[in-house]
């Protein structure tokens, strides 16, 4: 046993060059991932940033009790789940639908061109894209002009300042920006489907829709399942870059997601321990969601990510 250990030590030092490549990475992970994880314990303290951590008093579940009785916290949960639910129910199928329809395009050159153009907005910063949305949805903006022009509304509506539109704005702007990019994985999966299957189905007299449903969808089901698991597991998250850009004082009551609540409480109001307690609880729930979504998907479709 002892000999084995020294043998391993020797082998370790013999490959010191390789080890010296990996160890800095592990050190980086310890500093930038594990230390913040460890610092989640300030959720149980009255932490002050000016003092060393261990000098702060332990206060048990105080902050957890505080945030669970805060109405604004529950409002942020409602907003997060609301926006995620809309994105999941109405947004999740759109890249899939786009990929399926793009796959039906006959001309390769046209297909390539559409594909390339559709990715572009993904690479535009949210500051820019959000800026366009703020302009379009504001006073005298494009949206108002079109809707008035088509006769759908009589006078201007300040969409961006009216809280009741906010969830829909996040949904539509996200769809406009990310549909093409979200379709890539499906397009890759579809290109891997055996063409022989389509030929066989055609001989059996299957029409276009039947082929799409019985072959394409069935063959890429694992991909759909995995993306669905990830989407469900991410329900407590929100697109912070987007919301931070589109929020304002008027729409905050529907715009403040859990992420934004943590930001506002922690960094704007400086309540570090309080918002860390929220983060702590969220991490646990998100992990549980991931495992639940994974096992549900395994039962339903036989596919999981672990």
């Amino acid at each position: 046993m002892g000999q084995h250990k020294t043998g391993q030590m020797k082998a370790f030092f013999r490959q010191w060059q390789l080890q010296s490549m990996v160890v800095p990475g592990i050190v980086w992970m310890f500093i930038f991932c594990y230390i913040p994880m460890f610092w989640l314990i300030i959720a149980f303290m009255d932490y002050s940033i000016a003092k060393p951590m261990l000098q702060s008093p332990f206060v048990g579940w105080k902050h957890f009790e505080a945030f669970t009785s805060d109405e604004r916290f529950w409002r942020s949960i409602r907003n997060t789940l609301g926006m995620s639910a809309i994105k999941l129910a109405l947004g999740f199928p759109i890249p899939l639908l786009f990929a399926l329809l793009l796959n039906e395009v006959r001309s390769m050159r046209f297909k390539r061109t559409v594909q390339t153009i559709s990715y572009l907005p993904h690479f535009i910063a949210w500051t820019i894209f959000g800026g366009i949305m703020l302009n379009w949805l504001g006073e005298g903006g494009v949206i108002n002009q079109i809707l008035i022009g088509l006769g759908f509304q009589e006078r201007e509506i300040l969409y961006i300042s009216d809280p009741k539109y906010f969830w829909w704005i996040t949904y539509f702007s996200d769809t406009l920006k990310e549909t093409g990019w979200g379709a890539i994985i499906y397009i890759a999966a579809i290109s891997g489907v055996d063409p022989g299957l389509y030929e066989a189905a055609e001989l059996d007299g299957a029409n276009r829709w039947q082929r799409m449903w019985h072959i394409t969808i069935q063959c890429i089901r694992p991909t759909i399942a995995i993306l669905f698991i990830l989407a469900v597991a991410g329900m407590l998250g929100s697109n912070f870059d987007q919301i931070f850009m589109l929020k304002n004082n008027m729409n905050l009551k529907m715009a403040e997601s859990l992420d934004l609540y943590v930001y506002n409480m922690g960094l704007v109001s400086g309540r570090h321990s309080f918002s860390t307690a929220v983060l702590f609880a969220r991490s646990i729930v998100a992990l549980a969601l991931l495992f639940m979504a994974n096992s549900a998907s395994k039962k339903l479709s036989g596919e999981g990510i672990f």
Partner: protein
Amino acid sequence: MGRQGKFGRFGVFDLFNGLLMILVCFATLYPMWFVFINSFNAPKQALLGTVNWFPKEFSLASYSVVFNDKVLMNGFVITILRTVFGTVVHVLFTAIVAYGLSKSYLIGRKVYMKIALITMLFSGGLIPTFILMTKLGLYDNFMVFIIPAMYSFFNMVIFISFFRTIPDSLEESAKVDGASDYGVLFRIVLPNSMAVLATIALFSAVYHWNDYYQGVIYIRSQDILPMQTILFKIIAENSMSLMQQQAMAQFGAKLPGNSIKFASMMVATLPILVFYPFIQRYLVKGVMIGAIKG
């Protein structure tokens, strides 16, 4: 009926599908076109924000305000520095770690991979990370853009899977000639990985170019604010720099606000738009590798 090769019958479905695809392209491109034309619009026209296809009254006034704005131009320089420096550091660091981990005979490999994987499932989150940055002296420090963005798990996985496709014989022969592990990595492996290096470098560069959030959270001094953070303040918080305020006074109150916004948005996006046609296939390739592995 149906698919008879490439020149099969072109039916009603194909017509509608083609039109739908053109509509998608239009919806995708119009927002950028809108910014483009309005940035050239004379200030008072841009304020109206009307649906249009071409500038109503061509003017470079907004661009001259943007290019003479010291704060914005300083932000532009900071963004370039951050993008170049941050990308080089990220690619080198992640590639080196990945090369070590791609060797199955690396002692402790399984433990290392578990340590890396756990960071994907669980994280400290915003506040603990903010406290860490403060304690490390990275608050209001340019290095906050570089060091925390040195490594990424996903890019490391892409590197590992690519390095494994490089034939062992290439590395063996170099080792026989007496090359060290570093020698093999820098003289054999990396020169043979240009495609994946380009892909990761582009992802990293796009991140650094587009990120505004790090600047909002960690930077207070105006001289190290990246351009996107300044844009965020101009667009979302309606704060104007001194130069812009002067311009507003010159053109009449509030009038030029929009076209200056559009011109600065255009300046911030132009590099992406110019390079995009050339780089997009690398970006797509990266996602494909990532999707297959992840």
